[in-house]
C-alpha cells in the first residue's frame, strides 16, 4: 500500500477548476516530483492534500482517508508541507520557528537534539538563531522552512517550489539537503517549476498541465521524453 494515494482530486477556486481530477501515488521512502508550469495546479494539489483547500476526490495517507480532516490533524498524522514562498514566521526568531516545527512533540530532549542537527546542517541558521526570521535572506529562510518541517519528524515531506527565487548557489545547497534527507529514508513529494533539477533528484515524476496530469513515469524517462524536453527543459 502506498504511503500517499491521491485519487480523482478536484479543486475549485470560485468558478475556476485548478485541479481536474488527478491521481498520484507516493510509496514509502520514495522521492517523487510533480513538475509543471506556473499555474498548472501543483501548489493547489499540495494544499488540497494537507486540507488547506476543500477538494473533491480521495486522499489516502497510510491507509486512512484525510478527507475532511483539519490541517492540524493532518500535520499530526505526519505530513509536513513546506509551503510556496516558505511561510516562515517573520516576527519569530529562528529558534522559535524551529520550535514551532516541533509544536506537537513532547520529547523535549530529542527535540533539542534534532534542533542541533538542523543547526549542523545549516550553520547559517545556528549563527542567527536569536534573530527574527524575517531578517534572513531568501535562501536562509528556505533552509529554515525545511529545517522547521524536519523538526516535526514527519513521515511524508511535501516541498512546494523550494528553489523559487533563490540564487543558483543557494538552490544547489537546498537540493543537496533535500537529497541528504531523502537518503536517510524520508518520503518526499517535491513540487517544482524547475523540471531539470526535480527530475535529477527524484526517482519518479508526474507532469502537470492545466490542472491535469499529462505524463507520469520514472524521472529518467521523463527527462528523455521529447515533449518534456521541449516544454520544460528548454530544449
Amino acid at each position: 500500500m502506498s504511503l500517499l494515494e491521491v485519487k480523482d482530486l478536484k479543486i475549485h477556486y470560485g468558478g475556476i477548476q485548478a485541479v481536474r481530477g488527478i491521481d498520484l501515488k507516493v510509496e514509502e521512502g520514495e522521492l517523487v516530483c510533480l513538475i509543471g508550469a506556473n499555474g498548472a495546479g501543483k501548489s493547489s494539489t499540495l494544499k488540497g492534500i494537507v486540507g488547506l483547500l476543500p477538494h473533491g476526490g480521495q486522499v489516502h495517507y497510510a491507509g486512512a482517508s484525510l478527507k475532511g480532516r483539519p490541517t492540524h490533524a493532518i500535520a499530526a498524522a505526519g505530513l509536513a508541507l513546506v509551503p510556496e514562498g516558505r511561510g516562515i514566521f517573520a516576527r519569530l526568531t529562528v529558534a522559535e520557528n524551529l520550535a514551532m516545527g516541533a509544536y506537537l512533540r513532547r520529547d523535549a530532549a530529542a527535540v533539542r537534539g534534532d534542533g542541533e542537527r538542523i543547526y549542523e546542517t545549516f550553520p547559517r541558521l545556528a549563527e542567527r538563531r536569536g534573530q527574527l526570521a524575517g531578517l534572513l535572506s531568501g535562501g536562509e529562510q528556505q533552509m529554515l522552512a525545511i529545517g522547521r518541517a524536519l523538526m516535526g519528524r514527519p513521515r511524508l515531506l511535501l516541498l512546494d517550489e523550494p528553489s523559487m527565487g533563490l540564487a543558483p548557489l543557494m538552490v544547489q545547497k537546498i537540493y543537496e539537503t533535500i537529497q541528504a534527507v531523502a537518503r536517510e529514508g524520508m518520503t518526499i513529494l517535491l513540487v517544482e517549476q524547475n523540471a531539470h533539477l526535480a527530475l535529477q533528484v527524484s526517482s519518479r515524476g508526474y507532469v502537470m498541465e492545466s490542472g491535469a496530469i499529462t505524463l507520469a513515469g520514472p524521472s529518467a524517462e521523463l527527462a528523455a521524453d521529447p515533449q518534456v524536453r521541449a516544454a520544460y527543459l528548454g530544449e
Partner: protein
Amino acid sequence: MDIFVQQLINGLVLGSIYALVALGYTMVYGILELINFAHGEVTMIGAMVALAVIGALMGVAPDLPGIVIVLGGVLVAVPVCMLLGFGIERLAYRPLRNAPRLAPLITAIGLSIVLQNVAMLIWGRQYIAFPPLLPQGSHEVLGAHISTLQLFIVALSVLVMLGLWFVVQKTRLGRAMRATAQSREVAALMGVNVNSVIATTFVIGSALAALAGVMVSAYYGLAHYYMGFLLGLKAFSAAVLGGIGNIAGAMLGGLLLGVIEALGAGYIGDLTGGFLGSNYQDVFAFFILILVLVFRPSGLLGERVASRA
C-alpha cells in the same frame, strides 16, 4: 508640582486599567484582524457579576472581611467572563471567519448592543454602588496622595501584565498564539489547532477585562450597564495608540492614555482660563486617537502594516 504628581499617579492607575482592557482588543486584532467591539461590554459584565456576588455575599456572610468578599466577586466574575468570551467567539465570530471583514465588525457592534441590553434587563438602568469594602488608607508620595486601592490596582495590573508577557513570549501556547497571528495557515501546518488558539485568546482577553471591570468599578465606586462603552472605546484608542496587534504597545498605550487624560483633566481649566473644565477629560482620549491616526497610523510600537509577512 503637587497637582502634577497627583495627576500622574491618578493617570497611571487609570492607565493600568485601560491597558488591561486594551490587551484584549489588541490580542484579538493581532490574530483575527477583528476589532471586537463587544470587549468593552465584557468588562461591564465583569463588574456587574462581581457586584452581584459581592452583594449576595454581604447578605449571606456579613462578617467576612471586605477584601474576602471582593475576592469572592472577582473569583466568580473572571470565569463568567472567560465563558462569555469563549461563547462570543464561538457563536458570533467563528461562523463568520471567512466572511468579508465588514460582517464580523457589524456583528461585534450588534453584540455589544445586545450585551448592554441584557445587562440592563438583569441589573436595571440605575447606577450600582460598589460597597466600601476595601481598605480606605492613603499614603503620601512626593506631596501627593495615593490610596491603598490605587496602589493595589497598579500592582495587580503590573503583575497580570507580566504574567501575560511571560505566557506570550516564553510558553508553547504563547508561541502558537504569535505564530497564528502571523499566518493561520502555516500555524495549522505546524499542527496548531488554530480554532482553539483563537478561542484561548478570547478567553484570556476576557479574563483581563473582568479584572479591569472590577477595578474600575471599585475605583469609581459604581457600575452601570453602559459603563463598558466609553471604557471600551478608550481602551481601543489605547491599543491603537500603542500599535494595534502589538502587546507591549497596548500596555504602553493604556498607561500613556491614562496619564495624558489625567494631566489633561488637571490642567485644562488653567490652560483655557476656566473655559473648559475637567469634565472634558474624555475628549483627550479621542483627540489623541485622531492625532495618532493622522501622524502615525501604525501606532507607537506598531509595524507598518505592509511589512506583515
